[in-house]
């Protein structure tokens, strides 16, 4: 048995890690205490390595662990100093006051509401306040940017509704099987055991795996609005997919998957504002390069990669082409969405777009609800 005081310290240390969002289980904390028995307690590095092996579950957690370890085992009695030393990764506890909430933020909050719920509250007929059919049709074919600020909330709600209905349809859809699959000898034998002859044949088929989505959304300038609709739409659809990974980019790339997974929209809002970078100019090529450097393991043959951008790239188009090609080699399909395509007079002449076009499998608009609905049809492999 390790000394009582030390065991207790390890438990307290576990609590500290939890406060810094390491999802420790109580089993892990018990194991950490047990591990002390097998470590040289006089060797700080060894204790550090041992506790890390038990308490860290993924590489991203290691820096948090390191910081906490440093702070906790340096001056355990000075609890305040610990809190201060750890202020780095912590989130502000208070929600932003009303003064901080701009019009845009309010809209975004509404947009993010109810993403992770996947509930079926729209099961029993349309909620009140939904436009009549003809009006609805008109709304679905109008470009998002032509709506007034006051209509956007409603439009976002509508987007989510359509997506949920689609999700139900997509997950229910069954395809007729062309071939019967492989003979399942085990089941065949079982089924014919009492007959002595093989009469009834059983087949088996490979399980169909769900598709994964990787979204790379341009949030610079005018693209931000479209990105928001696409995100809203796809997140309402997310249970159709094995996984949805989301990144935003303008000058640099930010992974927002975890942010979007947050439970309460207040939290989501707060975090999304933190990751936002509003500086002008888009470097698509560089952003894709960064994606390839750190996140290429998310892409495989069962993955559809969607890039939403107008292709106005201030960077080098060759970089864009190289990096996009790299994605294309790994991915099942690459879809490029350009809202400007909704404008009949638009031609993809920007250098970035010209470089990207030959490399994408599908090029579409995503500028209105009807286009988003069409997109849903493309999201299977």
């Amino acid at each position: 048995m390790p000394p009582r005081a030390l065991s207790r310290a390890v438990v307290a240390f576990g609590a500290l890690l939890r406060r810094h969002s390491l999802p420790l289980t109580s089993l892990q904390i018990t194991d950490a205490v047990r591990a002390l028995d097998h470590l040289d307690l006089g060797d700080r590095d060894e204790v550090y390595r041992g506790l890390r092996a038990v308490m860290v579950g993924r590489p991203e957690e290691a820096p948090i662990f390191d910081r906490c370890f440093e702070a906790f085992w340096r001056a355990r009695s000075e609890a305040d100093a610990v809190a201060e030393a750890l202020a780095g990764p912590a989130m502000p506890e208070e929600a932003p006051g009303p003064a901080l909430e701009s019009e845009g933020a309010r809209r975004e909050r509404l947009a993010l509401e109810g993403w992770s719920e996947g509930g079926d509250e729209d099961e029993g007929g349309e909620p009140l306040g939904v436009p009549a059919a003809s009006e609805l049709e008109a709304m679905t074919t109008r470009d998002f940017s032509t709506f007034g600020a006051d209509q956007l909330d409603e439009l976002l709600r509508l987007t989510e509704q359509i997506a949920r209905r689609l999700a139900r349809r997509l997950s229910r859809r069954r395809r007729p099987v062309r071939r019967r699959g492989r003979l399942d000898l085990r089941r065949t034998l079982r089924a014919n055991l009492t007959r002595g002859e093989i009469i009834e044949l059983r087949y088996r088929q490979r399980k169909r795996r769900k598709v994964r989505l990787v979204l790379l959304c341009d949030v610079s300038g005018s693209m931000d609005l479209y990105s928001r609709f696409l995100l809203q739409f796809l997140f309402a659809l997310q249970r159709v997919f094995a996984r949805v990974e989301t990144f935003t980019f303008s000058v640099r790339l930010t992974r927002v998957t975890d942010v979007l997974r947050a439970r309460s929209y207040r939290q989501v809002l707060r975090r999304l504002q933190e990751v936002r970078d509003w500086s002008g100019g888009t470097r698509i090529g560089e952003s894709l390069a960064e994606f390839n450097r750190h996140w290429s393991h998310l892409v495989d043959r069962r993955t559809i990669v969607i890039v939403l951008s107008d292709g106005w790239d201030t960077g080098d188009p060759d970089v864009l082409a190289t990096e996009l090609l790299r994605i294309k080699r790994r991915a099942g399909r690459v879809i490029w969405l350009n809202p400007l395509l909704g404008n009949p007079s638009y031609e993809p002449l920007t250098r970035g777009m010209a470089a990207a076009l030959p490399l994408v499998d599908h090029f579409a608009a995503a500028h209105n609800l009807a286009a988003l609905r069409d997109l849903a049809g493309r999201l299977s492999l």
Partner: protein
Amino acid sequence: MREEIRKIQSLMEAAEYVTDAPVATSVHLALSLKKPLLIEGHAGVGKTEVAKVMARMLETNLIRLQCYEGLDASATLYEWNYQKQLLHIKLGEGAHKPVDQEEHEIFSEAFLLKRPLLQAITQEESPVLLVDEIDRGDEELEAFMLEVFSDWQVTIPEIGTIKATHPPHVVLTSNRTRELSDALRRRCLYLWIDYPTYEKEIAIVERKVPGIDARLASEVARFMESLRKVRLAKVPGVAETLDWAQALATLHADHLDEALVYETLGCVLKDADDIKRFRAEVGKAGLAPFLQVSG
């Protein structure tokens, strides 16, 4: 440092594996706490090797379960040898045995094909069970493993429950093509293996390619360290280092020069774009930047 950890380190060294304190500590804790060890890291840093070395070190069997997409959870446990069962039924056709006796016979252990998980729990001595590339398997498989790992017993309806008398030491590896579930992570000890440091890589090369020139080994390690900093589609791992060092040693090289590197580049870079990029870099400033201590 704890005596056991030092011992593990020297045992691993004796088993031809160049190790460091984090690896040895994790292995030690996995053995003494009897917990699965989850190892992650880039391709080719020697994750699988840890399990192999553990088996050699403990002088026990290594049972390997290679995961792949679509691997059926039940197929990792056991299957019935249906061909043998069919033959048995055919052969016994004249005898008119009662059906339940027949069934009893063909669903006995003699007709059972033990797959890795079942093998692992029916050994005389705790083996090392390597679940390789678990990220390539489905999530259901992961859940199934967790269940097996929790009590080390398996129920085969026709035979009964088999409980492990000597539970295996489990090592899981993942290349992170898919995020593993928290449930699995939280139940394992975790080890991240990074690309080796310059010193460690020299040690690995000298250990695995006996007789290699000391200067060459150091240049190779330095070169690899620099190369991994270039933006590459396929970053070479330790396996590539060793292939290359072996090739160079076979050519009786004692130092690196441009011509030699170009001739043997295929051992290291395995992507056409990477080779192009590397050639462009060398074209600019020669080989020298790759052999300098990088800041």
